[in-house]
């Protein structure tokens, strides 16, 4: 069975939807001949030409605005923001335009567009190229927010995102792109994974680990290790999309395990897991046998130096310690 990396899976999804549907096109910086900052669009320019793989000047607000305008008038644009940190430059177009147009026009417009962008740290890109800003997107009604953790999901979620009739923020973790360790069988045919459905990536009975994106992989590693070495059996829930949020899946799991540790890469303070934890504290309170613990990045901009960056971002050790603490074994 063929295996694809995360990057290859997304690229295949783009190629397939673009072949299938004439209304789909891409726009972004250096996505043409250059093939995108992470090489993800390499070859697409040659395949689809400059009209459908549109290189833009460095002008994020206009490029997102153009995506919105083309979406409202019948296209299905895929806009690439090179780094999710640059969404800030186009923030009004995302938050006040793309997200609100449908509602403020009384439901009479549709804005089917995808903003795909590389996010997360761990590669030494420092404060302005490493953020995990999903909590900001998730708070805005009108947006959907997708955070695939593996190649299989990435492909299915991407195709679903393109065919969704709403603005979708598709957050791709740069650590996952080319790491063969996470390569996986990805079917060649097109398939979709519905937005708003999480998945139990590993079932277990002792404690629920809920995570997103790359942190799902880290959580799985820790869960497997704890199972092997300590007979602690964690369930790992991958939210896959954080908006809509599959809180039922989380509560279902907590019902079984009684314990919840939330793992995210964003800064802890005001991070998205606050929403997950609060919903569980409200709707799953009676199932909880222990405090809900969040493991997230430290509350600072992402530092450059490897040692500091590793200290900031949740490590396997940090996840492990917190699991043991919640289980009363620390």
């Amino acid at each position, binding site marked *: 069975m063929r295996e694809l990396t995360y990057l290859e899976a997304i690229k295949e999804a783009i190629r397939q939807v673009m072949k299938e549907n004439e209304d789909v*096109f891409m726009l972004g910086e250096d996505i043409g001949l250059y093939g995108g900052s992470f090489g993800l669009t390499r070859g697409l320019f040659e395949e689809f030409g400059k*009209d*459908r793989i*549109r290189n*833009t*000047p460095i*002008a994020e*607000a*206009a*490029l*997102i*605005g*153009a*995506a*919105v*305008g*083309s*979406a*409202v*008038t*019948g*296209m299905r*644009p895929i806009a690439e923001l090179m780094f999710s940190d640059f969404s800030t430059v186009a923030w*009004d*177009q995302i938050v*006040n*335009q793309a997200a609100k*147009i*449908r*509602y*403020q*026009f*009384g*439901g*009479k*417009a*549709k*804005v*089917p567009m995808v903003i795909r962008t590389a996010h997360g740290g761990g590669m030494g890109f420092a404060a302005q190229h490493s953020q995990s800003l999903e909590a900001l997107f998730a708070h805005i*009604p*009108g947006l*959907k927010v997708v955070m695939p953790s593996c190649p299989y999901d990435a492909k299915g979620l991407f195709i679903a995102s393109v065919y969704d*009739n*709403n603005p979708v923020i598709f957050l791709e973790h740069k650590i996952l792109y080319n790491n063969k360790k996470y390569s996986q069988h990805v079917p060649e045919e097109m398939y979709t994974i519905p937005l708003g459905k999480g998945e139990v990536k590993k079932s277990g009975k002792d404690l629920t680990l809920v995570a997103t994106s790359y942190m799902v992989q880290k959580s799985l590693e820790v869960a497997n290790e704890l199972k092997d070495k300590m007979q602690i059996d964690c369930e790992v829930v991958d939210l896959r999309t954080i908006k809509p949020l599959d809180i039922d899946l989380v509560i279902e799991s907590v019902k079984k395990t009684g314990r919840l540790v939330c793992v995210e890469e964003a800064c802890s303070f005001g991070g998205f897991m606050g929403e997950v934890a609060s919903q569980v504290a409200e709707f799953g309170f009676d199932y909880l046998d222990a405090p809900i613990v969040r493991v997230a990045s430290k509350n600072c901009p992402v530092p450059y130096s490897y040692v500091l960056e590793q200290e900031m971002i949740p490590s396997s050790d940090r996840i492990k310690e917190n699991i043991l603490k919640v289980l009363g074994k620390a």
Partner: protein
Amino acid sequence: MKENNFKIANKFEKLSRDKKIEMLRKMYKIRHFEVEVDKFVLRGMIYGTCHLYTGEEASAVGAISAIDETDYIVSTHRGHGHCIAKGADLNIMMAELLGKGNGYCKGKGGSMHIADLDSNNLGANGIVGGGLGIAAGAALTCTLKKNNRVVIGFFGDGASNEGLFHEALNLASIWKLPVIYLCENNQYGMSTSVKESMNIDRVSKRAASYGIDGITIDGNNVIEVYNTVSHFAKRCREGVGTVLIESLTYRWRGHSKHDSQVYRTKEEVEEWKKLDPIKKYKEYLIENKLITEEEDKEIENTAIKEIKNAVAFAEKSEYPDISEVEKDVYSD
């Protein structure tokens, strides 16, 4: 007031009498629509805020008459005029202003967000300059779908200082998008005079940054606006691409609901009122024997009646049901 050396044909001349009269009719509708909105404002019935278009009628009507129904417009916070000119239903507009459930946005948008997608009006915008990229995007659809349509992107003099102005015009220029950027320079962005907000005398000079045509016209002369937009719409359809038109005009009223207008003199306002675009056009039509004084009166009265009907319609319409509140956030 034209300062550039464009050879712009008098396409207006060739219009049918009906079409010429229709333009007057629309100008009256806009004028009297705002009269009634203003009364609502005084009666405290406009929730939030709204921005009256009074005095700028020639700009919307001239420009929009020069494009087709299938063409798009992108409007601004001061959008009533554009909306009416593009063919919106007055009843439904007025209902929206009162926040009624049968308004254009089901009461969810209000003055700053009226959109009428059926007439290809992509909507007002509460963010100054917020629609400039959207206009480029709509034009991109026209290019990609090769449907021969064009877009007018309206914006104000104030908006021309926003970053998106620069980004959008640059994008439109390199992609030769069929979008006409039409700056309604009414001399002020809220309280700030153009003299204070930029170091040049003409917004149209900014065309130099994009290698596109830039032209300043008398925005109170509906014929000049019509001819200019016709000219550039044709060029857009021919693939020449974008243009920056600056339409000089004036807003007669304050910026929004509350405005003591300390930033300008009564005299200045009176001077501009003498350049009333409706009066100018009406006189032209009478002089050229296209209508009589009586016909003019009748056209105005019909407009007034329609607006009064819209007011009655809006007033008796129902507020939306509260169950509506979380609907329309997402599309299926």
